[in-house]
């Protein structure tokens, strides 16, 4: 059984669809981090905190382990060595996508994203990683 793991890039366009299928959608704490870190209003932050608690209670949050960080870093390293990404880019380039990909890869989830380019790169290092564009998944 495979379930969708959403990338942050999906949120601007697919809020209604996410709400409709909330039961079946999984989130990475990386996505929650990105949403929270970019929040401005205190009231939004409080709602995210309630959402975090509810997601955790419902077992819908995936948190990368120490080994996930290690494997994700090695995947990005190999992309650099193969010159598939510029070696002069910051070490954090692709970090969050790689962590989300690793979480999906090890747990038989598939990534739903608007950012196919980055995840396609990561698929070269994680051949069994499944990724689908948000438009394909939701429409």
């Amino acid at each position, binding site marked *: *059984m*495979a379930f*969708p793991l959403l990338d*942050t*890039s999906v*949120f*601007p366009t697919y*809020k209604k*669809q*996410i*709400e*409709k*299928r*909330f*039961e*079946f959608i999984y989130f990475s704490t990386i996505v929650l981090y*990105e*949403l929270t*870190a*970019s*929040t*401005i*209003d205190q*009231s*939004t932050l409080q*709602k*995210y905190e*309630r*959402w975090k*608690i*509810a*997601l955790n*209670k*419902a077992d*819908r949050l995936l948190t990368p382990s120490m080994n996930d960080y290690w494997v994700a870093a090695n995947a990005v390293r190999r992309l650099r060595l193969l010159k598939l990404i510029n070696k002069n880019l910051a070490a954090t380039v692709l970090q969050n996508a790689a962590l989300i990909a690793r979480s999906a890869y090890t747990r038989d989830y*598939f990534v739903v994203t*608007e*950012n196919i380019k980055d995840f*396609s790169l990561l*698929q070269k290092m994680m*051949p*069994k*990683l*499944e990724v*689908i*564009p948000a438009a*394909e*998944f*939701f429409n």
Partner: protein
Amino acid sequence: MEKKNGNKKKTGENQNGNGLRDYSHLPRAKDFKPSKRLSKEMQELKKATREALKALEEEEKKYGVSFT
């Protein structure tokens, strides 16, 4: 839920004749049918999800999208 078209394909094989990636083996949102009765945890999640997404939408309107 079973994946469409049987077993998972290797990613490298997910190309159709047009050179475009083939996603037909992956489920779509419509394949996940909402439950008629929700547990207490899922009711809480439904409410929290709705509120969080609404708050996000309001922030986008006020400040623009900044996380992607």
